[in-house]
């Protein structure tokens, strides 16, 4: 049977960090580091094949079994809600999914009925307001520069990821509520986990070991300071 493992990576910084981690865990990723415009990078010797996909598509590749393993942000996983095994928190790409708006709204959010919520993440926004807060909202789907929406009266609040909070502050907005902590996750197709357990399980173990080694190192460095 085909024992090559296909790994879907989210194009960009997340892919670089994932490859770094895999290398440190003892996997040869020379193929993936090749500078080219190829979308499939295969290394027959190490038995790994990398595909570079748009982050929002990674869960789809993995759910359908086109890739066995994926590395993708928790924000994308929450938004796509696919049937996957979400096995490891890789720690990098950390940020928070938040409800943001003008600071004047702090503490007054629940008082606004049928709020308009602008976001790139309609699914997350809907399940937060309808599921957790039990309130009906109007979701306005935008594709970028979401911070604009409350500034020009398109919506009362936004739901978006917040890293440093700098963009928010520069636009006079604040974090009003935190929905979830976000970081990169390693996901596995449900069938691959069973059918290719012999190659997947050792890889997961190696990554876990490497992650905890990184953590220890970090702590030591912090202690030294």
């Amino acid at each position, binding site marked *: 049977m085909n024992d090559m493992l296909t790994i879907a990576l989210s194009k960009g910084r997340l892919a670089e960090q994932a490859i770094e981690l895999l290398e440190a865990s003892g996997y040869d990723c020379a193929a993936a580091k090749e500078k080219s415009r190829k979308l499939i990078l295969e290394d027959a010797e190490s038995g790994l094949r990398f595909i570079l996909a748009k982050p929002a598509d990674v869960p789809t590749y993995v759910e*359908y079994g086109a890739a066995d393993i994926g590395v993708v942000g928790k924000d994308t996983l929450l938004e796509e809600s696919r049937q996957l*095994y979400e096995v490891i*928190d890789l720690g990098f790409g950390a940020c928070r999914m938040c409800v943001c708006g003008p600071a004047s709204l702090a503490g007054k959010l629940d008082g606004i009925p049928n709020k308009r919520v602008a976001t790139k993440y309609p699914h997350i926004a809907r399940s937060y307001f309808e599921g957790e807060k039990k309130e009906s909202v109007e979701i306005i789907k935008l594709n970028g520069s979401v911070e604009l929406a409350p500034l020009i009266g398109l919506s009362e609040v936004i739901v978006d990821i917040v890293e440093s909070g700098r963009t928010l502050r520069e636009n006079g907005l604040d974090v009003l509520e935190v929905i979830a902590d976000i970081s990169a*996750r390693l996901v596995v197709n449900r*069938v691959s986990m069973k*059918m290719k*357990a012999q190659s997947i399980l050792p890889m997961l173990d190696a990554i876990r070991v490497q992650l905890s080694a990184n953590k220890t190192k970090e702590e030591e460095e912090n202690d030294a300071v």
Partner: protein
Amino acid sequence: MGNYRFHTPDGVSDTLPGDCLAKRGFETKLRGLFSSAGYQEIETPGIEYYDVYAAGNFVSQENLYKLADQEGRILALRYDGTVSAARLAATVFREVQPPLRLSYVGNMFRFRESGGGRQKEFTQAGVELLGVSSTEADAEVIALAISSALALGISDLQISLGQVEFFKGLMEEWGVPAEDAEEISREVDQKDQVALKKAADRLALRDDARETLLLLSSLYGTYEPLEILEKRVTGERARAALQNVREILGILEDYGYIRYVSVDFGMLRSLDYYTGMIFKGFTYEVGFPIISGGRYDQVVSAFGRDLSAVGFSLGINLAMIALRRQGREFPAAGADAIIGYSKEPNMRKAALSMADSLREEGLNVIVDCAGCGEEELETLADLRGIEQVIFLNASSCGCDTEEKI
């Protein structure tokens, strides 16, 4: 208007001759297998009342194809074989002494299913064993599921066996409220260790309970997970569930099927629907399980009859996708022979009677109805891969045949 006339709707597809032939062959094999094990086939309507599915909250309404009848009642296209069989067991068959062994092969309709080989309309073959709550019944159904996959030629088969009762037992022992338990079961099923650690903190679980919870999604093997968990778990309900799995494995040894089975206590599904062991069947080259089954003792009671139930279904379309990607081909069968005839008297009658006798021998025979001459007939036969060409004319006395080998 009319822009879609050349298309089929999303999530449904035509089945062309090669696939259709193979699919009917598979269905016939499975029907034979089920009936040889004493299961009687039923055919339930393609349309049910919506209430049938609403009865036990079995299916989320977003997943049903709904329409209305002339009286304004809500109807739903058949979602699966189990709920309809349960309705029958509680109504038409209410006087029948259990056990009941029922089987079905039919098309199911799911509004939101699509992608990766899944279709909104697909064919399932499955069985329901009603009125026996024994471990032997659990094992019989799992064994029949394995036999089904093998009968289709899927030998790279992995059956994952789980137990929702074990999980429910743990939750009860640890005093976890029902709504939290449902949430945690999803997190266990997704092997989401991050969320599970948070849940353990939130519920202030004891250290050993916390460890057990995190272990659920990381134990693999056949007997190993059992051995580890048997040492950790003390509650009666959870221990009974472990015992059930151990006994099932023992019986599957007797069936000679143990090599296909591994145990996964981290595999969990709707806690409201399932009441005991659950299982899924996987093979290479398709991203979704081809087999799904388990014990759901509350399904028939939603229709007012207290009857235990265990069953499985196999998705024939997904299985065929897997087989094709594993290298199997599904060629269409052409005719074995084609008979043409001249316009002379009595030739048609001779051709028809020759066709009859060849068909009786089991050949697939076409009688030309386009008025082809001998040469045209040869060309047509070449094109379609028909081996035997027969042309009747008066000079061949209506009985001489020209064979092309």
